[in-house]
């Protein structure tokens, strides 16, 4: 697991900004409500989406996370972009508007999620879910998935090194078989390690909930944390109500 945390923490940008310090449950609610607000915005109100983008970038500035951090990670939304670009080809002007709708809302949704992930560690996210009374089963699954991701990433790295040091050069197509067998072995080994990690957690008295050493957030904290949601609501209200 030596480099394990690097594996899951690709999304997290450690820092000590006001955004980082907000209790995780506040950030989860804020991100969720913001996304709902974005999705509810009529697609033809172009200026509103510009407003949301300014809002997200402002949060990045406050969190002191560079734009490049998000630019690289936003690549996961490439499928959205492809669909959006195909829409006009299929449906003319209406298609173009539909494509824009997917592109704008998809991008803002992805950027909002990335902002949450950049300023909140995986563990905090789980604690946050717990404080929001998410069913224990869900938080347990989330905890174990995080743990498995880390384990799998580290195991994959080690096995790749071992293959490469034995002369495997994954650039050659005919060596794809070794990579495929590697993935099979990886699955089994990750499963076994995940099993042992789980046993080690259970052995230390774990019964499905992460220990929570924090305190409840005050109304003032909630208000501060939900400011972006208020801004989103104002933009949405204007877009819907003002002719």
């Amino acid at each position, binding site marked *: *697991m*030596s*480099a*394990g*945390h690097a594996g899951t923490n690709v999304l997290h940008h450690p820092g000590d900004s006001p955004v980082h310090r907000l209790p995780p449950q506040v950030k989860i609610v804020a991100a969720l409500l913001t996304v709902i607000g974005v999705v509810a915005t009529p697609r033809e109100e172009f200026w509103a989406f510009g407003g949301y983008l300014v809002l997200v970038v402002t949060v990045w500035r406050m969190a002191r996370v560079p734009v490049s951090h998000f630019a690289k990670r936003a690549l996961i939304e490439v499928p959205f972009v492809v669909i959006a670009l195909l829409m006009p080809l299929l449906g003319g002007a209406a298609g173009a508007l539909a494509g824009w709708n997917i592109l704008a809302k998809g991008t803002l949704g992805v950027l909002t999620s990335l902002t949450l992930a950049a300023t909140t*560690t995986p*563990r905090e996210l789980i604690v946050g879910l717990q404080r929001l009374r998410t069913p224990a089963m869900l938080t347990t699954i989330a905890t174990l998935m995080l*743990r498995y991701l*880390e384990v799998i990433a580290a195991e994959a790295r080690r096995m790749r090194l071992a293959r490469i040091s034995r002369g495997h050069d994954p650039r050659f197509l005919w060596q794809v078989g070794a990579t495929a067998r590697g993935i099979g072995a990886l699955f089994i080994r990750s499963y076994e*390690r995940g099993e*042992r*990690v789980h*046993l*080690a*957690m*259970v*052995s*230390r*008295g*774990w*019964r499905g909930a992460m*220990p929570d*050493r924090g305190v409840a957030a005050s109304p003032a904290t909630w208000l501060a944390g939900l400011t972006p949601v208020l801004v989103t609501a104002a933009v949405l209200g204007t877009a819907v109500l003002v002719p």
Partner: protein
Amino acid sequence: MTPALLVKGLAFAYPDGHQALYGIDLRVEPGERVAVLGPNGAGKTTLALHLNGVHTAGAGTIEVAGLPVTKVNLHEIRRRVGLVFQDPDDQLFMQTVGEDVAFGPANFGLKGAELDARVHQALAAVGMTDHIDRSPLHLSGGQRRRVALATVLACDPEILVLDEPSANLEPVARRELAEVLLSLGRTTLMVTHDLPYALQLCPRSVLIDDGVVVADGPTGDLLADSELLAAHRLELPFGFRLD
């Protein structure tokens, strides 16, 4: 006096039908340090995983300080039996050393100042206090092993069970760990096939092979019996002398 650990006729088969234990009897008095010796596949780890109820005995009974290992007692049993896994990477999974050490005692209900005090005590006992805010992944093998030990010590167990504590340790780290273990003064069961380590740390040894106890006595006597060792695929390192 109530023994710290009492195992009677313990038998166990894995779900795939492989019988790993064939009736183990073992009695450990409070304060004793006992080595569990045996070749690979003898059933040592399987036995260790029974002591805190991770595996459920197929036949036989286990008592920890008088309390039987049964489903209803499981949480208390896990507090009493501190199991240190063979691979520290299975045991350490939090972002910082301090969080990892707090995980166990928090699961057992400690909070606030009491929890912090317990974490500091445990880290001090293994000489790792200065590393409390570091990621476990950035520590050396020997340091990780000591932190893994601290995560269990923090639960203040009545009996410490260590699975192959000297595996993969360089000589200096191995000696430092021995010094820590000797300084703890706790009832300890140490699973190992490192015979010199057993001699250094444990006045008494139990030899297990094929799922049964084949010898039980002073460690020096067991190790002096070269026929016994040879019969169970164990041998002292080249050049090692018992006197």
